[in-house]
């Protein structure tokens, strides 16, 4: 992992001037590196990490275990890509174990997610079965704890 990507993970701050200061480089050099990462599709975009409890996203999220039948040429890829293209699908992974694809979906409400699964996903030829689990309450999101540690207000500002 490059030092720039490592720093992005660490600080969560994409401002080139700040990244440049920490890495001891010119701002223009950082901008160029970021552009290169985007051009070669290493860096796909920027997404805010929100606390769903606080951000009032108005979304229902579910994770679906999907069994599919692999195809002679292409294995699971064509089916996985086909499922991934739905805008309801946030993420899609090929898995080892008791099912083939793990699909993260979101929708306006429970009905819309249910409709997507029953009418669009489950009806695709080659989808053998689905098992849907609705997400109830988040505790950790993208490495961020959503239940904050209690800040130690008595930690001294200066200590030996």
């Amino acid at each position, binding site marked *: 992992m490059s030092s720039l990507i490592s720093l992005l993970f660490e600080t969560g701050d994409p401002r080139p001037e700040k990244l440049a200061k920490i890495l001891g480089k010119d701002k223009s050099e950082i901008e160029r590196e970021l552009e290169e990462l985007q051009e070669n599709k290493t860096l796909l975009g920027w997404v805010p990490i929100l606390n769903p409890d606080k951000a009032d996203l108005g979304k229902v999220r579910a994770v679906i275990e999907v069994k599919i039948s692999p195809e002679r040429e292409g294995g699971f890829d064509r089916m996985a890509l086909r499922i991934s293209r739905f805008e309801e699908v946030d993420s899609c992974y090929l898995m080892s174990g008791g099912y083939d694809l793990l699909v993260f979906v979101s929708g306006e409400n429970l009905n819309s997610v249910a409709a997507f699964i029953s009418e669009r996903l489950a009806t695709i030829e080659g989808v053998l079965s689905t098992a849907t689990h609705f997400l109830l309450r988040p505790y950790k999101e993208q490495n961020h704890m959503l239940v904050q540690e209690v800040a130690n207000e008595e930690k*001294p*500002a*200066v*200590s*030996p």
Partner: protein
Amino acid sequence: MNPENFIADHIKSLPRSGIRDFFAIVSEMPQAISLGIGEPDFVTPWKIREASIFALEKGKTSYTDNRGLLSLRKEISKYCSNFFGPEYDPISEILVTVGVSEAIDIALRSILNPGDKVLYHEPCYVSYAPNVTLAFGEAIPVATTPGQEFSLDPEAFEKAWEPGCKILMLNFPTNPTGGTADREKLERLAKFAKDKDLIVISDEIYAELTYEGEHVSIASIPGMKERTLLLHGFSKSFAMTGFRIGFACGPDWLIDAMMKIHQYCMMCAPILSQEAAIEALVNGADDVLRMREQYHKRRDFVVRRFNEIGLNCHLPRGSFYAFPSVESTGLNEVEFCHRLLREKEVAVVPGTAFGEHGLNHVRASFSTSYEKLVEATDRMESFVDCLDSENNQSAAI
């Protein structure tokens, strides 16, 4: 009633910690960015906290053996053998203490008769000289210097020796300078210790936080284990300051003597901290490496920024402190710290809080987030620029 009559003379004459005075000022400015914190900014790794919680759930709330849980002492023995070199018998050569601070105190009290002398290097951790005084000994400071990046200088110790010296006290990597000691210099110092028949108390609490080369313990030099008390703890490298847990490894006769004080004063280290320490030693190595990598990167950033600003700063080879000189600003270290705090709301600690050889230097901890380090160094740059303008105007007048 005159309270003065009820305070012991040697306590009355003991100076207050310079850190304490500065802390009082910073406490009134909670909005200030503090680079004055002498502890990790990381919370103790979860697996270690969880081990302590699990022990509590299981009802482990009792005293332990005075020397500490045997299972912990066995792990300490393994760890020391792997990391520091010497092998210590868990039964007779290891004592679990309430932090390294307790170990220093009871070691000095065990060894010193009134008037015995202790050689130690300075700038150094704030408690060394007061602890010697409290044990009725005489502390003899030996300067480490910016010219040698505050590293161990055996020749300076040899010159400072005088009759009555009994202990050589070391702390490498050093708080506050980040200075370290290489094998060659330690070998020369070991010869000196043997020639003068000195006991070495070696506080190696920052050992894992060595960034350049490998840490070498003086206890690993042939012939030194028998006259060295190796002190180590979990506060710094495992981010466990609040657990208050450390240990001393040394010859059985010295551990026995320390035990006499420890059993009457402390009884034992808290069992929950001992349980956490076992987890740290068994499964915490990855966490130490992860934190060290972060400190390493932040060190490089802070040192570069200080030098860009014009505050001459050597590369600290260990610990999580930078120790830049403020001489170029025309202010002494105390004026610099007070004005920086008042005018830019950034707290760093005057070098003289760590002994008079910290003159014209300040200690800045880089154990804090990039966000704060970037902001703090930007403010320091602005402060130094303002000082330069002031100095130029004065010169023009």
